[in-house]
């Protein structure tokens, strides 16, 4: 067992890459393009423990399975703990009929998950990388999103949550780096949520699982080990569709989600120091349905908006935000 754990550590350690001390040579990018700044430990939810992002996900899943006897977790390789160690220990604790592997079939995983959810059980499906979610796109968009509407509220798959590692990691290239939130933003009926840190991740994931609508939860893979915070051990919920103003400012509003929140935090500090510009930073958190009120209110105050995301520009979610802000102003 110890050997297996070491091997698992090597597996995902290799996957994420050990980060050596950055050199000044511009040709090689040796380190991440931001510094993760942990938020202060929340005091309202009881005892906290130092956890990184994947551990906070495991904690959330642990709480969910403990509270809800119908909850099941499934996906590729989740039984041994998952390729990013998000489900470590859960199978031992809750049994092999609650935490189990599926074969290599994303369309099957989501379709199957919809079926589980429709009967009323809580289904937590894992897609191994957001880049692989596309075979399941039809199931999500045509089946999951529209179930409640087309059955006149007779049936729904609200107890379905789909989790997937998301975003660039440095060495992922075409198929281990994608940020597909914009594709799903175009689909009413589902919710899309992206946390920026371990504390946020646990609270938002638990909210997604509780939420009576099918949710897609994207986890920034570059933060799995890099982000460490004091996270409450018990369950707590962070409301969906509520953006958070992380830093108040008066000159420009900067909106981001996931990893980019940390980049713009660094940028805001630099802007203040070097240009004397006061930036208001907003973490959007929920992409769909998004908190138009918070963002618009902020832009009314500052008069300028900058949105930063990893996904391609054309039709990216920034386009939706900027056009809505224009209409609302």
């Amino acid at each position: 067992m110890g050997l297996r754990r070491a091997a698992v550590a090597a597996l995902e350690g290799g996957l994420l890459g050990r980060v050596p001390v950055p050199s000044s040579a511009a040709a090689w990018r040796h380190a991440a393009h931001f510094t993760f700044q942990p938020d202060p430990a929340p005091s309202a939810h009881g005892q906290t423990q130092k956890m990184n992002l994947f551990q906070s996900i495991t904690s959330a899943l642990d709480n969910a399975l403990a509270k809800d006897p119908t909850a099941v977790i499934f996906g590729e390789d989740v039984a041994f703990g998952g390729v990013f160690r998000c489900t470590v220990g859960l199978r031992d604790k809750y049994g092999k009929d609650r935490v189990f592997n599926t074969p290599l079939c994303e369309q099957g995983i989501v379709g199957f998950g919809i079926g589980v959810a429709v009967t009323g059980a809580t289904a937590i499906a894992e897609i191994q990388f957001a880049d692989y979610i596309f075979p399941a796109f039809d199931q999500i968009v045509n089946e999951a999103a529209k179930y409640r509407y087309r059955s006149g509220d007779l049936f729904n798959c609200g107890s379905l949550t789909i989790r997937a590692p998301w975003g660039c990691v440095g060495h992922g290239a075409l198929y281990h780096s994608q940020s597909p939130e914009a594709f799903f933003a175009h689909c009413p009926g589902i919710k899309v949520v992206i946390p920026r840190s371990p504390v946020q991740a646990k609270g938002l994931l638990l909210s997604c699982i509780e939420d009576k609508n099918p949710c897609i939860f994207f986890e920034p893979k570059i933060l799995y080990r890099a982000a460490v915070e004091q996270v409450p051990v018990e369950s707590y919920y962070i409301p969906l569709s509520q953006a958070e103003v992380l830093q108040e400012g008066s000159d420009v509003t900067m909106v981001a989600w996931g990893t980019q929140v940390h980049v713009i935090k660094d940028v805001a500090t630099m802007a203040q120091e070097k240009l004397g510009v006061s930036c208001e930073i907003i973490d959007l958190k929920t992409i769909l349905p998004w908190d138009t009120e918070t963002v618009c209110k902020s832009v009314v105050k500052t008069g300028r908006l900058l949105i930063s995301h990893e996904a391609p520009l054309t039709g990216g979610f920034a386009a939706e935000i900027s056009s809505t802000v224009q209409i609302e102003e």
Partner: protein
Amino acid sequence: MRKMLVAALSRVLQGPAAARTVARVVVASRTYADFASEATFEIKKCDLHRLEEGPPATAVLTREEGLHYYKTMQTIRRMELKADQLYKQKIIRGFCHLYDGQEACCVGLEAAIKPTDHLITAYRAHGYTFTRGTSVREILAELTGRKGGCAKGKGGSMHMYAKNFYGGNGIVGAQVPLGAGIALACKYFGKDEICLTLYGDGAANQGQVFETYNMAALWKLPCIFICENNRYGMGTSVERAAASTDYYKRGDYIPGLRIDGMDLLCVREATKFAAEHCRSGKGPILMELQTYRYHGHSMSDPGVSYRTREEIQEVRSKSDPITLLKDRMVNNNLASVEELKEIDVEVRKEIEEAAQFATTDPEPPLEELSNHIYCNDPPFEVRGPNQWIRYKSAC
């Protein structure tokens, strides 16, 4: 006979040291005419599905063929080991899926088809890139992401292409419908070409594979579906992933063969049989190659958390494809041990030179970043990560 008697006499008269010198002289005076020109081998019978007859139970191997196969397999083996080394030195980054252990598959397949036939596979593609005609230096340079690479340094390990070789595909199972499409084109153009569509035991559970079986059988496409069953889909053993591990039967209405993928001659004869089946217009056929990979799924996977070291060692000692060929050739007088050692030395040198090129060739220029997004004439402007960066996408 006389030479051996002389040698024996000298040994008796002059002691062990002299005997060694005499032995060397005896070997050096052997000419290549002393080797047999060919030998016949018995090969394992294939399991058949919906077929009355299978490939023959014997195979003929000529000396030239044997030497060529040996050199090719050894080149692939050393190339993969060199890639392993370069990855550990962080000269190759990203993902790298190595093919050592499975050499008999790609070399056997290539031996049975023509260069005008087509082949498509998944991401464990370095062996096929080589057998389909790309040089080792272009493959290694692609792995290190340099402009001398076969995909200009933009593809990397999983995206290598060559003439009539369609990659090199990252998404599991996605290449199978493509293979059927290529087979349709072969049938349409009527040039007697076929398409070999490869996938792994993990991909065999993807829905699109079954959709492809249906289309290929319905339209009688000249497509050989080949499942390279190396027993593990990443870290999951076949028993834990598939309701039926008889991958050669999973085409249902498509006839199938199960073949020992560690024996090059088995693979070659079966592929010849399958190619004949397709070329004669009978429609698709399915081959399951039972093979094994020594490395883990990728360079991030140590490969020992889901299988034992003993298992890997056992396969290495009993079924290694290169050793199997070497033993066959030496024991049947098709080549000598020294001759094969010379080939080893030659191969090592070639790989070293290729690695040298791969580490010193410059990276592609920044302008290359935006090229080949679309096919467009004249080039159009692509937005970069911020307002002030623009690229020109040329094709």
